[in-house]
């Protein structure tokens, strides 16, 4: 599964593609099951250079019933900085945020979990 993300030009906010417009929450994003659809969206997004900067596709995995990015960089983008739990999108809390925090994405080497959560 994939989603399309970028930073908004006017304020830098992390945004996700949803049928031609941009939304701020990953839970609201359009999820692409096939590469063709994702690729088309990416082309369309690139045609909006005064709305967003450098759109790109990210891979998702299932985590507790929500879609979470495979890479922890993308999980941090979708959450906010881990040293300030009230900054960024994570401030909203709720099940989707918890699922992102618990996700272990691509971490296969040791199967460690809670890579995002601080002690």
């Amino acid at each position, binding site marked *: 599964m994939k989603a399309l993300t970028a930073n908004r*030009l006017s*304020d830098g906010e992390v945004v996700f593609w949803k049928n031609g417009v941009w939304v701020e929450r990953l839970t609201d994003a359009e999820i692409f099951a096939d590469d063709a659809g994702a690729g088309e969206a990416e082309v369309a997004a690139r045609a909006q250079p005064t709305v967003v900067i450098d759109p790109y596709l990210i891979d998702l995995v299932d985590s507790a019933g929500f879609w979470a990015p495979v890479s922890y960089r993308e999980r941090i983008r979708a959450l906010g*900085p881990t040293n300030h739990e009230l900054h960024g999108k994570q401030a909203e809390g709720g099940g989707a945020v918890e699922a992102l925090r618990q996700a272990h994405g691509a971490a296969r080497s040791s199967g460690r979990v809670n890579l995002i959560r601080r002690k």
Partner: protein
Amino acid sequence: MYRYDAIDRAVLADRTAEFRDQVRRRLAGELTEDQFKPLRLMNGLYLQLHAYMLRVAVPYGSLSPVQMRALADIARRFDRGYGHFTTRTNIQFNWVKLADAPDILDALAAVDLHAIQTSGNCIRNVTADPYAGAAADELEDPRVWCEAIRQWSSLHPEFSFLPRKFKIAVTASPHDRTAAKVHDIGLLLRRGRDGETGFEVIVGGGMGRTPYVGPTIRAYLPSNRLFSYLEAILRVYNRHGRRDNAYKARIKILVAALGAEAFAREVEAEWEKIGPEGDVPAAEIERIRDAFTTPDFSSDPSTGDFEARRAAEPAFARFVRNNVKAHIRPGYGIVDISLKGIGETPGDMSADQMDLVADLAERFGQGDIRSTHEQNLVLPHVRLEHVHEVWKALDAAGLATPNINLISDIIACPGLDYCALANARAICVAQDIARRFEAPDRAEAIGEFKIKISGCINACGHHHVGHIGILGVDKKGEEFYQLTLGGSGAEDAAVGKMLGPALPIDRVTDAVEAIVDAYLRERREGERFLDTLRRTGDAPFKEAVYAEAH
């Protein structure tokens, strides 16, 4: 503090007007991101993971109370009530909107601050000794030269599109508190045989992917020839530095490729052609010197109840031991403000804390505040009789952690919590280590100990010159950390050596503790960690970290 004149102010006003127009053109689609990026970077505006980040120059780490309050105000109005002091002695705001950036620059210009050349391939903010003008061991105040360099390098028509960024450090003390030898140019103020002052010129140090301790290319440069010499170095670099690969574009690579001697010959040949025409006249240097406010040192060296309180209050005594340094004048001390509260983000400061420090500097510190490359602040001129009151106020605001140069005084770059280039987080690693070594008696028993953490090989957290350096790497989608031992950014500058395989995040603090324990076992009377390591080599430490690892 250097006082701006009408010309200095006009330069900032013209520049902010220019940037406002560039932002407008970008938002209107007249500039592409590729065209706009170098322009915003030359005004310190980055795009990070969550938002834009604005890097404000704190020229040679000097701030007035008025400026500090303006930073607090910007933190409240345009950010989330805080800022981050960096290893470049600048301050960064992490939550800036592009559309607000011109207003922020105007607010900065109103107090003679700017973000000019805090990024981009140009001459960046000059690093100075944070104790300049106060240190008991300095030859003369290096900030005069720093301000002259700031002016000379600002909007330099020839040297604004160098192969890569360019950082200069100036120090006038035998104790290097600027990391001069890992700058592109390090200038060490010296007294010549004729009694005049001059500089030892070090070129081609740096960190990043290929760390180097810079070689000296000229043992003594008369100070009145500084600017023609800088012009010669920059010209040789601008023409011959590599532009085909960003990782090989710093001057250190050119110096290493040519060899220090051949590089020096090129510079000297160019210098001869430039001649004194390239120098800033002595009268201007004197004007700048006079434009610095001179602190009003009372002739009365009374220290009030300083000694009595020190004897009576162990917590105050501990603060004085670690955070107060010898001043050039009797009856004064240099007070270090720790931005390394245990469990806090290294270098972060809230707007309220900024206001408090501004007040203290005004009431007790001759209106002078410094930022250090170790991400702390300094009140350079505090009467000893006021140190107790300053300490009380700092302590109440969480700014009096008595840990300067100790193991919990950790440098950490923003890492993956903010930075778009990061491999791994740095802040949480610093927080974890600081908590482990929270007990102040233990930290003092360990003594001087510099841990420096970077979230990627760019080395913004100076890990190469940490006694223990910690570098974040990505291993199969997990945060791992590579340890190096034996680096130093001081006068005995050295690049740390890799200890062994990278460790997962939850083993880093244990590894640091194992290294510390091994040091405590091995050390001889009076040895710092670095001394012990240099004597024993890294075998005992390798053993301590990796022995039980399997």
